[in-house]
C-alpha cells in the first residue's frame, strides 16, 4: 500500500477535504445551538461542493461541475437558509439542546469511525487508497449523522442529521465513483429539495398539534400499554 | 331339529327349576338362622299367586312400564337357553357366547331401570341410579373373568368351554382360583344379594333392586321375580359349567342326560349352601363401600389374568 507522499496532489487534496467533512460531522455532533448546527451543516455542504469541483477538475467530467453547482446551491445555501428561516419563525433561535453524556457521544462517534474503517477494509484489494478511504469516511459520516438523529430530541436537529446522511452518501458517490449518472443526480437533488420543503410543512404541523418540536413528545402511538 | 327340541326342553327345565333354587337357598338360610323355614316350593306358590292377581299400574306411567317385564323375562329366558344345563352342544348355545350373555342381563337391567323411572317416584329413581352404578362397576370384573377363561380355553362359547375343561382333564390353574372367586363376588353383586343388596327389606337405605320394582304388581311383578330367580340360577350354572363341569351330558342319551341333571342339581345345591352361609355370616355393605367390594373382584380378575400370562403361558 502506497503512502501519502507518492500520491498526486489532487488526491492529497481530496483526502484533506475528506478529513474536513468528517470533522464537520463531529462538529455537528457536538454543536448544541440551532443556528450553530445549521451553519456547520452549511459548511459541510460547501466542502462537498468543493470536493465535487476538485474531482470534476481532475477527471475532467463535465457533468460533475453541474452537480457541484447543484450541491453548492442546494446544500450550502438554500437549505441552510430555509432552515434558518424556520428557526426564526418557530422562535427557537436561542434554544439550546441539553445533551446527556456529551463526551460519551463523541467517543461513540470515534468508535463508529473505527468501525466503518474496519468495514471498508476488504475493499482495499480492488481500489486505490483514495476511494477506499472515501468509502470509509462517507460510511462514517452516515453513521455519525444517524447518531446525531438518535441523540437529539429537537425535530430540527433530526432534520439536519437526515440531510447530513445525504451528504455522506453524496460524498461517497462523488469520490469513489466520480458521481452518479446525471438523471440520478437530478432525481436525488429533486428528492432532497422536496424533502426539505416537506420538513418545513411538518415543523408547523407539529407545532400546531403538539405545540413543540420535541420528538419525544410524539409517543401516542405505542404498543406496550400496561 | 331334534337338537332344537332338546334345547327347548332344557330351557324350559332351566326356568322351571329356577324358583326351586331360590327356595332352597331361602330354606338353608332359615335353617342357619334357626328360623322356621318355608317349604322349598314356596316361590312357586308366590309366583302363582302373583299371576293370579290382577294388575294395578301407576297412572303416571307409559307403555314402557308395561312392556318392560316381558322384555326382562324374555332376556332371562334367552340367556337360560344359551347356558348348558344338563347337556352341551345344543344348537341354542351357539346363539350367544358369554359376552352376549352378559349383554342380555344388561338389556334386562336397562329396561328394569327405565321402568323404575317411569312412574316418576323418588324410590324408583334411587333404585335405578344405584343399580346402574353397581352394574357398571361389576361389568369390568366380569369381563376380566370371561377374558381370562377365554384366553385359557381360547373360546367364549360356553359349550366349547365345557369341552375344554373336560377334555383337559382336571388341571389345577392358579388363574382359575382367582377368577372363580371373582365370578362369585360379581354374581352376588349382579343378583342383588347380601352383602351388596338385600332383597328381603324395604328400607330406603338398604334396597336397590326392590326399589325399582316397588310400583309393579300382579303378573308383571311375577315375571320380574321369576326372571331374577332365573338370573341367579344362570350365574350358578355358569360357575358350575366353567369350573366344575364334570358329569354334564356329552353325547345325548337318556342315561347321560339323567346323570347330567343329577350332577348339576347336586352342584347347585352345594353352591346354594355356600351362598346361604356367606349371606348369614356377612352383613350388608353401605352403598359407598360396594365400589371397594367390586374393586376387589376386579383386582382378583386382573390377578387371574396376570397369573395366566406369567405362570401358565410364560
Amino acid at each position, binding site marked *: 500500500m502506497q503512502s501519502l507522499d507518492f500520491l498526486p496532489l489532487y488526491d492529497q487534496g481530496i483526502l484533506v477535504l475528506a478529513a474536513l467533512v468528517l470533522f464537520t460531522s463531529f462538529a455537528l455532533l457536538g454543536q448544541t445551538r440551532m443556528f450553530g448546527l445549521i451553519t456547520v451543516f452549511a459548511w459541510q455542504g460547501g466542502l462537498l461542493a468543493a470536493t465535487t469541483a476538485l474531482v470534476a477538475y481532475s477527471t475532467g467530467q463535465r457533468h460533475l461541475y453541474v452537480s457541484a453547482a447543484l450541491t453548492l446551491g442546494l446544500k450550502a445555501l438554500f437549505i441552510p437558509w430555509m432552515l434558518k428561516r424556520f428557526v426564526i419563525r418557530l422562535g427557537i433561535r436561542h434554544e439550546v439542546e441539553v445533551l446527556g453524556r456529551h463526551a460519551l457521544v463523541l467517543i461513540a462517534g470515534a468508535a463508529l469511525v473505527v468501525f466503518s474503517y474496519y468495514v471498508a477494509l476488504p475493499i482495499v484489494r480492488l481500489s486505490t487508497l483514495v476511494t477506499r478511504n472515501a468509502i470509509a469516511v462517507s460510511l462514517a459520516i452516515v453513521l455519525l449523522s*444517524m447518531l446525531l438523529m438518535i441523540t437529539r430530541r429537537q425535530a430540527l436537529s433530526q432534520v439536519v442529521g437526515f440531510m447530513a446522511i*445525504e451528504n455522506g452518501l453524496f460524498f461517497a458517490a462523488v469520490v469513489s465513483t466520480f458521481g452518479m449518472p446525471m438523471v440520478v443526480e437530478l432525481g436525488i437533488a429533486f428528492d432532497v429539495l422536496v424533502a426539505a420543503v416537506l420538513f418545513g*410543512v411538518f415543523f408547523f404541523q407539529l407545532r400546531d*398539534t403538539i405545540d413543540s418540536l420535541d420528538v419525544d413528545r410524539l409517543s401516542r402511538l405505542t404498543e406496550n400499554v400496561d | 331339529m331334534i337338537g332344537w327340541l332338546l334345547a327347548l326342553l332344557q330351557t324350559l327345565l332351566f326356568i322351571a327349576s329356577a324358583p326351586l333354587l331360590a327356595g332352597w337357598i331361602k330354606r338353608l338360610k332359615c335353617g342357619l338362622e334357626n328360623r322356621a323355614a318355608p317349604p322349598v316350593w314356596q316361590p312357586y306358590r308366590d309366583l302363582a299367586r302373583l299371576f293370579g292377581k290382577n294388575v294395578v299400574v301407576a297412572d303416571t306411567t307409559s307403555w314402557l312400564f308395561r312392556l318392560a317385564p316381558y322384555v326382562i323375562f324374555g332376556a332371562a329366558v334367552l340367556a337360560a337357553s344359551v347356558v348348558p344345563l344338563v347337556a352341551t352342544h345344543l344348537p341354542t348355545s351357539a346363539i350367544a357366547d358369554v359376552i352376549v350373555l352378559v349383554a342380555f342381563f344388561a338389556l334386562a337391567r336397562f329396561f328394569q331401570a327405565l321402568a323404575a323411572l317411569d312412574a316418576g317416584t323418588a324410590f324408583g329413581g334411587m333404585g335405578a341410579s344405584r343399580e346402574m352404578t353397581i352394574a357398571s362397576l361389576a361389568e369390568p370384573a366380569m369381563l376380566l373373568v370371561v377374558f381370562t377363561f377365554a384366553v385359557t380355553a381360547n373360546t367364549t362359547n360356553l359349550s366349547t368351554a365345557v369341552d375344554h375343561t373336560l377334555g383337559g382333564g382336571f388341571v389345577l390353574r392358579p388363574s382359575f382360583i382367582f377368577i372363580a372367586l371373582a365370578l362369585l363376588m360379581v354374581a352376588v353383586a349382579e343378583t342383588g344379594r347380601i352383602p351388596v343388596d338385600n332383597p328381603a327389606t324395604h328400607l330406603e337405605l338398604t334396597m336397590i333392586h326392590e326399589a325399582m320394582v316397588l310400583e309393579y304388581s300382579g303378573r308383571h311383578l311375577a315375571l320380574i321375580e321369576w326372571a331374577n330367580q332365573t338370573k341367579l340360577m344362570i350365574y350358578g350354572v355358569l360357575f358350575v359349567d366353567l369350573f366344575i363341569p364334570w358329569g354334564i351330558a356329552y353325547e345325548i342319551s337318556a342315561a347321560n342326560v339323567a346323570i347330567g341333571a343329577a350332577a348339576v342339581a347336586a352342584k347347585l345345591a352345594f353352591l346354594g349352601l355356600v351362598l346361604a352361609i356367606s349371606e348369614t355370616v356377612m352383613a350388608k355393605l353401605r352403598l359407598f363401600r360396594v365400589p371397594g367390594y367390586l374393586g376387589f373382584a376386579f383386582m382378583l380378575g386382573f390377578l387371574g389374568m396376570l397369573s395366566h400370562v406369567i405362570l401358565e403361558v410364560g
Partner: protein
Amino acid sequence: MNALNLTLVLPAAGAVALGVVGDRPFAALVNVAVSAATLVASVALALGVLETGPATSPGRLLYIDAFNVYLVLLTAFVGLTTAIFSRPYMAHERERGRVGPRTMRLYHSMYQGFLFTMLLALTSNNLGVLWVALEAATLATVLLVSLYRTPEAVEAAWKYFILCGVGIAQALFGTVLLYFAQERLVGIAPSSALLWQEMYAAAGYLDPTVLVLAFAFLLIGYGTKVGLVPLHNWLPDAHSEGPTPMSAVLSGLLLNVALYAVVRVKMIVDGSLAAHSDQYNPQLAGHLLMGFGLLSFSVASLFLHRQHDVKRLFSYSSIEHMGLMTFAFGVGGPLATFGALLHMTVHSLTKSAIFVTVGHAAQIAGTQTMDHIRGLIRTQPSVGWGLLIATAAIAGFPPFGVFTSEFLLLTATMQSWPWLTVPLLIGLGVAFAGLFRHLQPMVYGEPTENMTAVRVNMTPVAVHLALVLWLGLAIPAFLAGWFDTATRLITGSGLL
C-alpha cells in the same frame, strides 16, 4: 407512444390534472377514470410482454419483463378498485368534516402521484431511478398520512417520514456501492453502469465483497419500506392514521414494490456470489432474507394479539405476510419463489379488500377502536360478511388463494429446511388466533347503539375476493405461465 410510456404518463398527467381540478365534485370521477385508463394501458403492456417477452424502452431507462409486468398490472388494478372505493368513502369523510377542499385536492393529486411513483419504481431499469422513485413514493404519501391533522396523524406521518427517509438513505448508499462495483468493470459506459440489465448480465464479474456490503445497506433500506422487523415501526402508525384508501394502497402495493426492489438486487448479488462461491456462501443473501422474514413473521403474529385499533391489526397482518414472502424469496428455489409471487398477488388483493371493508366498518361505528365495533352483520350484512370472509381468506383458509401460496411455501420449506416448518406452522396458528379473536366480536353479536349503516360500495371487495377465490381453486394457465417465467428469471429454473 407505446403502452409502457402510457402506463407511466397517464398517472403523472392525472396527478397534475387533479391538482388543477381541485375539489370539484367530479374530481373523484376523474381519479377513477385516470386509474381505469392506466389499467387499460397496463393490460395492453402485459399482453405485449406475454407475446414478445421482455422489452426495454428507447434509452433503456425502462425495462419490463414477466416479473415486474404482473406487478404493474396488479398495481394498476388495485389502484383502480381503491379509487372506486375512495369515492363514497372520501365523500363521507367530507360530510363528517374531517377533510376540507384543500386537502381533497391534495388527496386526489397525490393519489395519482403515488401510483406514478410506484409504477416508475417497478418499470425502471436504472437502480438509481428505482431509488428515486421509492423515495418519491414516501414523499407523495407522507402528507396523505397526516391528512387529518390530528396529533396522532401528524406523529405517524413524522415517524413515517424520518424512519423511511433514513432507511431509504441506506439504500442509496447501497446503490452507490453497486455502482462502484459495476463501474470498475472495463467496457461499461458510466451512464449505463447503473442499469439493472447490465448488472445482471455482468453479475458474475462483480466483486462479491462490495456486493455483500451493498446488499446489507439495500436490505436495510428497502427492508424498512417492506416493514421487516425491527425496522417496521413506522408501518402500523402510517397505515392506521391515514385515510383508509391510502392504507389499502400502502399495504397492498407499496410493500410489494419495496420487496420487488429487494428481490431485484438479490438477483444480482446471487449472481456474483455464485461466481465466487469459493470465498462466500452463495446463499448468503437468501439466508439474510430468511432470517428477517422469519423474525418479522413470528413477531408480527404475536403483535396481532394485543391490538385495539382495527387498522393497526391488519397492518400488522401485512407485516406478517411480507415476512412470509421475504422468507419465501430467501428460501429460493422454483417452488418457494412461485409461491412468493403468488402470495404477493393474493395478499395485495385480499389485504386491500380488507382495508376497504375495514374503512366502511370504521365509518359505520364512527371509530377505529375494535371494542366499539360490534355486530356488523346485523348493522350492515354486506360489510360484516365481507370482513369475515376476507379475513378468513387472509388467515389462509382454502379455497382462497392465500392458502395455495402458503401451501407451496410450506412444502418448499419442507423440502429444503424441514425443521423451519415448525415455527412457520406455529406462527400461522398464533396469527390466526390473533386475527379471529378480534374479528369475531366485531362481526357477530349485537351491535352497539351508536352504529349506523352508511353508503358503501362493496363491488371492489367482491371483485377482489372473487379473484382470490379463483386463484385458490385454479390458477389460470396464462397466469401460471407468467409466474413460471418470472420464477425462471429469478431462480433460473421453472416449474412447468
